[in-house]
């Protein structure tokens, strides 16, 4: 299975970015092959609205089965949920730490959006 981490860098040592929709990149880590690949989230960040939706859409396209991020807004959550992608909240400093926490089962699955949208 592939896991998408919101991050501001392009490696496992990079910081875990706190906001899903506005994160600069997603690091997609394949648990089976142990390969990582980076998806640029630049287009979502640039859009004034719907960044979360667009970001969720790219994560779905990347084939991820889980998302690890600090905060996932309601619209992005709805898209991820519809695609059957689990969302895990995590406040680890780096992507690598977050991955270790995921592997050890320390992360709690988010069952609703924890960040209210703009006006919600």
């Amino acid at each position, binding site marked *: 299975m592939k896991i998408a981490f919101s991050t501001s860098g392009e490696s496992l040592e990079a910081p875990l970015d706190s906001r899903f929709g506005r994160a600069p990149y997603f690091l997609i880590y394949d648990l089976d092959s142990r390969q990582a690949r980076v998806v640029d989230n630049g287009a979502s960040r640039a859009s004034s*609205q719907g960044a979360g*939706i667009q970001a969720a859409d790219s994560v779905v396209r990347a084939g991820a089965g889980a998302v690890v991020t600090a905060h996932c807004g309601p619209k992005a959550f709805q898209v991820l949920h519809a695609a059957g992608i689990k969302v895990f909240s995590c406040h680890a400093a780096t992507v690598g730490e977050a991955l270790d926490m995921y592997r050890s089962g320390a992360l709690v699955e988010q069952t609703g959006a924890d960040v209210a949208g703009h006006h*919600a």
Partner: protein
Amino acid sequence: MKVAIASGKGGTGKTTVAVNLARSWGGPVQLLDCDVEEPNAHLFLGGEKGEEVPVFVKVPSVDEALCDGCGECGRFCEFHAIVVVGRSPIVFPGMCHACGGCAKVCPRGAIREVDERIGVVETRRSGSVSLTLGRMDVGMSMAPPLVHAVRARIQGGSPAILDAPAGTSCSVVATLRETDFVVLVTEPTPFGLHDLTLAVDLVRELRLPFGVVVNRVGAGDDRVHAWCRKEGVEILLEIPDDRRIAEGYARGRLLVEALPEYGDLFRSLAGTIAARVGVAA
């Protein structure tokens, strides 16, 4: 005559200027609260609550029986208001700009447009002021159609004062468009000047005549004044930094009623605006 009151950011005293100007106009005047995310002019003007009329926009509704999940609609929509996940589209009505495009590009004719309520428009009367306000429903983010619905209530005859949302977003543009004059409210601080320059860029782009009201004069420095001089921007009015003004505002009181000595300032502002637009106040 239509006059818009705007500011590059919130908290500069825009509403104070709008409501006190309306109250001081001398004669019947229409006040349109176009800050539909947070209408607040009524808190100062009072008046009986009027009837709320709902405002709708057209948003897509997908017939799942016809949809084959091709994804055309999602690829078309630049606002991400419809996204195809797996085989079924999800619609985010609050993001939809009601352009009708997704229904047109759907090869299976699976998309119909249905009415979605975005908020209400209400008109109330307070003395010589007829106040119309728009109030967006919780969770909606499409302010411009609601601003248009508020503006549609403007009647010929008496002047209209439009209280714009703060900032330079598309709902601000929707408020400012086709007005005769724009009053930009700012504060004499570095942040105030920064936001003022953004607002000035916007009104210049819209080619609207404008002037500036500096609020809380004495609280900051003279950089806003210096910048206006350099740019040839007229300062229409200066409101002094008076603690009693903030206190009255916090209690929801009209400045010109709580502190009648300020009445002349706003009457002169009304006169200046009328003169700039070229009509009798």
